[in-house]
């Protein structure tokens, strides 16, 4: 027995963590500077597993950092710069107080500045690491670039953000990387695929800011400082990957091409390389090839189309989106610089406007609402323009970020788009339109059309069934022996039957445990289907109700 009594909190968790205030004192920084340093270096607070052990027996809620993190921060050269800046502020204040104006200018000329390049290199050792974190940077950049010069943040920061975001948009345009767009009530969500990374960002609508008071602007500005530096380097790398000069010039209008020589179509249609990999089916390969082709087609969605953007439409977003898919865009000269052609241009194919009707219309172009562009992009095909004419009630703008699994409820609008994608509904629409014109002059929604289409399908099926039944009945009643026919062996059907049989057998051979699990899964699936059916029924009822309402209203009028 014996030995020195062990002290409490001398080892273990208590020594691995450090409270924020102690860390701050260790680094000899003010709280604001400490917070800034942590954000720049990517050191974040931790929640310990056993708070009481770490907090020396107290259960008071505190912010903890890992001791190792703080020790790492001690080596940061920027800490010295922060201290220098503190002294600079003190000197400046003193000079102002004494009204030594020459001293003030001298101090201001020698204001200590720091660079974040080394931190970027340290935090993102490779380019792909940086690209993975660009979501945040982009969202922040786009947000700050829409700020007014209200003094909430430095004007230079706003300008830098604007420059970097415009550069980014131009890169996306040139590389045709945009995949999805979603207009939400909050802002516009974009998704692009850059060098194999899926990048999502949020852009606020223009002029939509009320500055919330419960947001720490200093923290946001610090994040932005870091992210602008990061984005600059990323942009540089991306531009050089396309063999473009960085920094580019005169971009803000989003109308001019970055590359002097536009790559020709033949060049783009380079064959995909085939690498025979063992254990990979030909089917998979084909599927991949097909996907690749689809992507290529999507990239050239608007190629050859000429758009004109009216002044009431969000110009920047539309110009960006349209040019991402190869369209030509222009706008009124008085709206923004960079207008390529005038309204009077006869070759314009689509005129995007957002007003009930326009007085002067050209006969050789479509006048459509802006949603057409976004919906077409999300559905990867040029949707029929008829649904989007001026003054027409628009079909709902569906979120492209929702991916329905099997058995989920799919809204009929989406079903229709899927059918269009498959190429099934190409001329069906025109027939429908004619029918409607004959039936009534009401402007029906496409929802109604959809419904009718469904109804018709059902009717057809019913007819077929009835015919079969009649035949059977007649056969029975007559009791005749008809001459035998050679049954055609439907191979596909046989195969299917075989497969079904195999499946049934497999189910039969299952162990009790597996069977239980299987039943559970199947039950879940059935439940899902049931719910989806319920929703569709509900939807139908809703549509019916709205339709009758409309008709009533129309009659009243």
């Amino acid at each position, binding site marked *: 027995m014996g030995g020195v009594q062990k002290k409490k909190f001398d080892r273990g968790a208590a020594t691995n963590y450090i409270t924020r205030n102690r860390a701050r004192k260790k680094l000899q920084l003010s709280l604001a500077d400490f917070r800034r340093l942590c*954000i720049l270096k*990517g*050191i*974040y*607070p*931790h*929640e310990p597993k056993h708070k009481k052990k770490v907090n020396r027996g107290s259960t008071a*809620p*505190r*912010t903890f950092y890992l001791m190792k*993190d703080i020790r*790492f921060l001690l*080596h940061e050269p920027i800490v010295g710069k922060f201290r220098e800046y503190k002294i600079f502020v003190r000197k400046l204040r003193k000079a102002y107080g004494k009204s030594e104006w020459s001293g003030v200018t001298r101090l201001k*000329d*020698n*204001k*200590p*500045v720091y660079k*974040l390049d080394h931190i970027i*290199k340290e*935090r*993102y050792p*490779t380019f792909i*690491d940086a690209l993975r974190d660009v*979501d945040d940077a982009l*969202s922040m950049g786009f947000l700050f670039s829409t700020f007014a010069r209200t003094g909430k943040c430095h004007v*230079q920061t706003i*300008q*830098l953000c604007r420059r970097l975001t415009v550069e980014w948009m131009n890169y996306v345009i040139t590389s045709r990387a945009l995949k999805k767009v*979603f*207009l939400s*009530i*909050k802002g516009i*969500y974009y998704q692009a695929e850059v060098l194999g990374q899926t990048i*999502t*960002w949020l852009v*606020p609508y223009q002029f*939509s*800011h009320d500055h*919330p008071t419960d947001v*720490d602007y200093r*923290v*946001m500005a610090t994040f932005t400082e870091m992210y*602008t530096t990061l984005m*600059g*380097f990323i942009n*540089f*790398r991306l531009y*050089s990957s396309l063999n473009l000069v960085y920094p580019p010039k005169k971009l803000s209008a989003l109308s001019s091409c970055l590359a002097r020589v536009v790559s020709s179509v033949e060049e783009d249609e380079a064959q995909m390389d085939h690498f025979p990999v063992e254990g990979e089916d030909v089917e998979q390969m084909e599927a991949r090839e097909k996907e690749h082709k689809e992507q290529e087609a999507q990239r050239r969605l608007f190629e050859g189309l000429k758009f004109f953007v009216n002044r009431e439409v969000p110009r920047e977003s539309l110009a960006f989106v349209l040019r991402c898919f190869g369209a030509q865009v222009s706008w009124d000269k008085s709206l923004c610089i960079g207008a390529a052609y005038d309204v009077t241009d006869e070759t314009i194919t689509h005129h995007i406007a957002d*007003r009930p009707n326009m007085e002067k219309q050209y006969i050789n172009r479509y006048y459509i609402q*802006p949603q057409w562009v976004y919906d077409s992009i999300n559905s990867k095909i040029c949707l029929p323009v008829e649904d989007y004419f001026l003054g027409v009630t*628009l079909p709902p*703008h569906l*979120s492209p*970020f*929702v991916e329905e699994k099997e058995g989920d409820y799919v*809204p009929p609008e989406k079903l229709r788009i899927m059918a269009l994608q498959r190429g099934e509904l190409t001329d069906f629409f025109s027939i429908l339109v004619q029918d409607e014109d004959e039936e009534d002059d009401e402007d029906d929604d496409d929802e109604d059309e959809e419904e009718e289409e469904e109804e018709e399908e059902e009717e057809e099926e019913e007819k077929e069934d009835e015919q079969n039944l009649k035949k059977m009945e007649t056969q029975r009643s007559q009791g005749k022996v008809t001459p035998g026919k050679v049954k055609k062996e439907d191979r596909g059907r046989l195969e299917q039957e075989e497969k079904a049989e195999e499946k049934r057998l497999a189910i039969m051979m299952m162990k009790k445990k597996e069977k239980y699990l299987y039943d559970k899964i199947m039950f879940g699936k059935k439940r899902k289907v049931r719910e989806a059916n319920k*929703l569709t029924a*509900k*939807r139908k009822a809703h549509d019916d109700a709205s339709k009758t309402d409309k008709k009533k209203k129309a009659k009243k009028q």
Partner: protein
Amino acid sequence: MAPNRRVKRVAASQPGFMTLNTSIKPENLVSNRRKRINKNKKKNWNKHIDVNDVEDFLEDVRLQERTTGVASTTPNTRAIMSNTRAIMSYTRATISTTRAITLCSLCWPLLDSTRNNQQRRGLISDKSDESLFFLDAGDKKAGTQTVVEPTGRRKASRPLKVDLILKNNSLVPVPKDILAYQLPNAKKLRNVAKKAEQLAAIGKVPKKHRPPTKVDGPTKTTAADAPNNPTRDFYDIWGQETKETRDPWYLRQTGKAPVKRGWKWNEKSSLIPAVEIIAPGGSYNPDFFSHQALLLKAHEVEVKKEKEENKIIKQLAYDKDDRATEESVFQEQVEGLEEEDYDANDFNSACTLGILNLVEKKTEKQRKKERVQKIKEQRRLASRYKTGQQQQLFQLRSIKVSLRQREQRTKERQTQRRANQEAEKYRPRRLGKLKFTAQDLEVQLTNELTGSLRTLKPEGSVLKDRFKSLQKRNLIEPRERAKFKRRLKIKYVEKRSFREIT
């Protein structure tokens, strides 16, 4: 030397100073020793150098000039020289000759004035005897002196009396302000110029005119270097790998080696995506059902909030049955005043009986019986244990089953725990005093939806969304806005003017 010293205003040096101790002479109290001072400072000259003798001399000259009247018309340069020489001799007594020149400048006006060939008054010593003395031969009106009376025409050209009065007729010229002719730091500048000339002769350009080199360091940090400068340029940061050529030992010892960043620091603190996409019901022109789903979600949040509020209200409320009635109030007031008498004797007797019972001793027989009982019980238990062990051999199957069950249970728990840990990565952690609170769901009611991009009124703030996202991903801890605390109380005083109105 002593005479140059300014007389100190010490009481002991004053005439008629009496000391208490008669053996000490008052003049001995003032030390005669010369004080050593720096003579290359103007201040010291003013303070320590006695120029009274020079002053006296000059005063004497002036007096003589005033009294002797008109001097001879010929400039007596010799006399002037002697004048200066006299000054020189004085000064040489105390200071070096070079310094004397400065003193000379004091009498410079004198020299200067002599150079002007004008009517002068002179010193008595310089005057000829004839001019000083004359023979008194009574008053002769007509004689040697013939005064030419100005004619009437010349009278007009005479200066006016007013001008004559205003004219400075002092013969002591106005002293020149030498400082006006002096250059500050003249010597230093002269030296610098000289040095520059020498360097130029060798072929060296002074630093001022040289373009800044790396060794000089940054001369001026301007806004161009700031990280948020909108025109700053970027480079390929990931392309170039600069190889460190310096000795690693040296770098480590001097603290110049970059500290390696562990892989753990680049791990994400949360698995929540940076940009969370709003539910499909948040579209500006949503599908009916998805919009309803979003509304339902928002509704649930509101219901939850209301429930919590109600809970607090309920907790604060009191039971109406507990309300004080007249009766209960009276009961409370009377409490303790009424005496309740209970039987004290009964209690006492019970106590004594209990003690007696405890004290009663066991007999020998009883003890023996107990001992036997005990041994019997022990034996019984031992045999039972033994049989139990033997029985277990036959229970092997059931034991196995129970073991398996236990294992199953632990496995389940493990997977559950692992799943919980995974789920925890998607949840905001508690990082400080405050818990994370999600922002309000962005929702537009059916009547707020316009269905057109032009008339859309954006909901919520992207800035707040970003800020909350940072908090949610554990990058920053949720904080309250710092409250403004007034250190000193504000004293409200009603102004008189204001009071008059009200």
